[in-house]
């Protein structure tokens, strides 16, 4: 690492490192993994957040509502490193998930969820969905409680059914919240590192390699600081592209 941080005689190579990174098949697949991970995380965060917010907004006992809200927020309170090891235990080949699935006959034998190339990325996305939906739930619940009652009453008089009321009153009211939540969440999820580093480390092979783990490995395992910087710049540019949408969305309101 001496040669990169304290090199007295650096050499200008133009865009050579960018070319190298962008033509690396592993980098390209890590971009795809990141986009897959981010897209499905955001989608299901939104679906689950909306579902939980509506459940909490339903006609239930107020003190039960308060307790349930706390329970539903739990997954959001855990450190990514801790989430990683809880799920490593749960998904262990000998763990509870395999036990339950085997006893209802859904799987035969032992499934190694995190070290199987076919399941690893899906499972990690699922864990991230579990971890992140409460953020949406809380914001959407606040939004739901701000929808004026008269509009629902008026719609009821006009004969609108539940689904129509949800589609034409609730959703338009929540739209600004939904948009900024999703954009911000997409940007944040694209930066995922600890969860993946502490569960699969990007493996098996490179099946769960994301842009952040790719860059980290270049830096601290291969000591390719300049190539890693190029890769980090690509991530930065992608994030900046997204944040233009975010800043715009913030300014409109």
């Amino acid at each position, binding site marked *: 690492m001496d040669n990169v941080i304290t090199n007295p005689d650096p050499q200008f190579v133009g865009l050579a490192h960018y070319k190298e990174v962008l033509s690396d098949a592993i980098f390209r697949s890590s971009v795809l993994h990141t986009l897959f991970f981010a897209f499905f995380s955001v989608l299901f965060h939104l679906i689950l957040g909306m579902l939980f917010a509506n459940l909490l907004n339903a006609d239930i006992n107020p003190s039960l509502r308060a307790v349930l809200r706390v329970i539903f927020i739990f997954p959001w309170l855990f450190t990514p490193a801790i989430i990683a090891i809880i799920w490593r235990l749960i998904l262990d080949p000998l763990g509870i998930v395999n036990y339950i699935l085997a006893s209802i006959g859904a799987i035969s034998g032992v499934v190694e969820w995190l070290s199987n190339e076919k399941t690893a990325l899906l499972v990690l996305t699922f864990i991230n969905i*579990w971890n992140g939906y409460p953020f949406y739930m809380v914001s959407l619940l606040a939004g739901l409680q701000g929808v004026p009652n008269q509009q629902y009453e008026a719609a009821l008089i006009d004969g609108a059914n539940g689904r129509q009321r949800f589609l034409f009153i609730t959703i338009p009211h929540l739209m600004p919240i939904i948009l900024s939540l999703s954009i911000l969440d997409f940007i944040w999820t694209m930066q995922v590192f600890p969860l993946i580093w502490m569960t699969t480390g990007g493996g098996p092979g490179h099946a769960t390699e994301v842009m952040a783990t790719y860059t980290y490995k270049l830096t601290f395992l291969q000591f390719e600081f300049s190539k890693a910087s190029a890769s980090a710049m690509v991530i930065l540019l992608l994030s900046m592209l997204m944040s233009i949408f975010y800043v715009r969305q913030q300014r409109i309101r």
Partner: protein
Amino acid sequence: MTHSIKKQSMGRKIVTYFFLLLGVVFAAFPVVWLISMSMRPNGEVFATPPSVIPKVLTLGAYAKIFASPEKIRFFINSYVVALIVTACTLFIAMLTAYSFSRFTFKGKKLINMLIIGTQTVPPISLMIPYFGMMVAYRLYDTYFALIFTYLALTLPYAILMMTGFFNTLPKALDEAVLIDGGSRLLTLFRVIVPISLPGIVSTGLYTFLLSWNEFLFALTLTKSNEMATVPIGIQLLMGQHTYEWNEMMAMSFLGSLPIMILFLIFQRYFLAGMSAGSVKS
């Protein structure tokens, strides 16, 4: 709170409660499992058939952690870093937010946009420059390395949030103090800050959460076990004794405890902070 339909039909109610129950299992099961596993001997972790209630209930895993100075050190590090970062963030954010809220100056809009924009800069793209800087300034593997980087992560959000809170307070409050001969700083700390305490609490909580949970910089800017925070400590232990599951779970429980306690006490503020990030601007 409950709008539209006042009385729900019986069938609808049953569906609602069914989904609520499903939600509770989905959200809480991993947490229950974590606690349950931390309170049993390691040999019982993969016992079949699995049971939520341990056959042998023991706090042995916790005792082992408290008997190990190396592991206690992880917690001390996390507390030191998170508390210092929270204190510094709040102080700096108060001053910045006050000037954003009360003064007009050249480039204010631009600076505001930049602050919103920095929230979206990926930490991984800051990793190499920060690493180089900390090595060059000989701060690598010290508390300072973590504190300085965390401040850069926490300040933008804290400033935006507090500016929002200060903006809701009328300027007449400041003028009353200024007319009596008070200084700007006096106005801020004697009048504005006490009134906006709820906002400051939620900003502080969020800052603490962020520094307590941070992983990437703790991993890259420290090296020795003596400097490891809780998340890094857990990673180190995962490498060493992969099979001490009960101890890992106890460690995770202790590592989540401060956040959970803070959340239960300051729930209202936490929720305000969570929705402020996306709803308010």
